[in-house]
């Protein structure tokens, strides 16, 4: 990426926010006064934020700051994995379908349609029943559906690109399908792909939060922002900070990703004239 991009405030600001959040998730647990699953028997349960516990404690007396940081790790990891999956499978699938067209396209896109039509919750519950509850299943479930949007968008863009003269020029210069796809088609999808990817991250984080909120996701004592919000929501009259901090981080992250995606799309549109 060009350094010039970071000089645009619309990109630099959300990027900086995200960097801070990631940094906090990575090193935060070491800064916290106690491990995320340890109970502070000296503090009262559900203590308000104080010098000892900057975000307060939860109803078991665990440090909320440590838990928000640890929860951020899982939420961000889910976002990252689903994005990598959607980039890898989604781009390849969509570009191949759009480029070759005809029967190849029809078969590949029907596969996507079928996966789309599958009720997501049913799919998750089925996985849980088959393999038992495991953290890995969250990643599998979200990864399995996150590339579908990307594949559809990439296919549509590839269809449009195929009519561009410079693609004809590449064909006429005798380049093979693979070379044209890798060097001429995919780079020109960059703008759309980045936007789609930045929208995939918050979507995946939300889905994970949703699963955890329903009790299908992460299990105690491990946690995620979604699980923390769930816990916090139950006690929000008595200890609002239990809801405010994880929800605040969740909202801030989603906002920053959406903001970043929008700004990147505007910045990366190749100047054509």
């Amino acid at each position, binding site marked *: 990426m060009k350094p010039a991009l970071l000089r645009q405030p619309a990109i630099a600001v959300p990027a900086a926010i995200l960097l801070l959040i990631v940094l906090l998730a990575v090193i935060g647990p070491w800064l916290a006064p106690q491990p995320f699953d340890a109970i502070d028997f000296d503090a009262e349960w559900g203590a308000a934020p104080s010098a000892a516990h900057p975000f307060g404690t939860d109803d078991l007396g665990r440090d909320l700051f440590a838990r928000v940081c640890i929860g951020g790790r899982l939420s961000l990891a889910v976002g990252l994995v689903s994005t990598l999956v959607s980039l890898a499978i989604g781009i390849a699938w969509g570009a191949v379908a759009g480029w070759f067209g005809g029967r190849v396209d029809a078969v590949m896109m029907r596969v996507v349609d079928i996966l789309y039509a599958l009720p997501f919750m049913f799919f998750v519950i089925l996985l849980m029943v088959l393999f038992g509850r495991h953290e890995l299943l969250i990643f599998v479930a979200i990864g399995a559906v996150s590339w579908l949007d990307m594949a559809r968008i990439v296919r549509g863009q590839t269809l449009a690109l195929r009519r561009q003269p410079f693609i004809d020029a590449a064909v006429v210069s005798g380049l093979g399908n693979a070379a044209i796809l890798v060097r001429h088609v995919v780079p020109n999808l960059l703008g759309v792909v980045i936007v789609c990817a930045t929208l995939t991250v918050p979507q995946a984080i939300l889905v994970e939060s949703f699963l955890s909120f329903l009790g299908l996701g992460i299990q105690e004592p491990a946690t995620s922002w979604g699980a923390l919000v769930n816990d916090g929501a139950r006690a929000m009259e008595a200890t609002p900070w239990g809801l405010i901090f994880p929800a605040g981080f969740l909202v801030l992250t989603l906002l920053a990703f959406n903001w970043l995606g929008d700004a990147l799309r505007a910045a990366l549109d190749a100047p*054509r004239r």
Partner: protein
Amino acid sequence: MSLLTVDALRVRHRAVTVLDGVSFAIAAGESLGLVGESGSGKSQTALAVLGLLPGTATVEGSIRFRDEELLGAGRAQLDRVRGSRIAMVFQDPMSSLNPYLRIGVQMAEVLQQHRGSSRAAALHAAARLLDAVRISDPRRRLTQYPHELSGGMRQRVLIAMALMAQPELLIADEPTTALDVSVQAEVLAVLDDLRRDLGLALLLITHDLGVVSGNCERMAVMYAGRIVEAGNTADVLTRPAHPYTAALLATRPVLEGPRPIRLPSIAGQPPDPARRPQGCAFSPRCQQVMPICRTHAPVLRQQRDRSRACHVGDEPSLPTDGAVDRNFA
């Protein structure tokens, strides 16, 4: 022997016939101008030669490059010929370069593909060619992106790019239409010099008679999917043998003398390819139309060094619709 021989080429898009028996040949090192109005089938001819027509088109006839039949050839065979032996320059320099790749990378690609050259060697060749098409500071241009270059420069980059693998035949589809007149002259001069230097054969597609007269040894005039007249450029332009060519020449604006109030034009419209008239396609607009023109389509026949497809001036005993004389080339 001819380099490229196109024989009785017919192209149909579903029920619409866009090329109806086009035949011509280009010898090595020769330049042929293909002229005609929009919709006459010039570009379709070029696309057919390069195998670029959509898969839904029906193509019949024969397209031979040296001894190799290109029509119906597989992708692998086409890829060996395209780019390395036949190259093409497209009409629109603005959209014919990939906006995300540096000029050098796009140019080098062709050599890396066809000759297995290293990137460095290919870039070296690219710089030499940019110099040949008179682009200043070629080394720096190689690192630039297409949007940093002007239209005229981009068209010259496209020409240089087409020449990377030293092809024997260059097909240029309206290479100067998108450029303004002064840049146009410059680009054409570059093209002409290179052609002579490299012994390149050129198929130049244009609607501009001036471009043909300056750059092509021979020319063929197309109308409604057929070649109606072909011959030496100077001959055809001074002594047109087909009423359409004559009418086309009459529409050229005259610079000397009093100006006409309206620019001359050919009355009527070119026929809709889906509803072509019976007989000669030009008959509804022809000043010299005869009864036979409306019933029998004339056949392209060679008379001395000129071929034409017209009944006017023919001996009256020849209303044949039979074998096409393909030896005019």
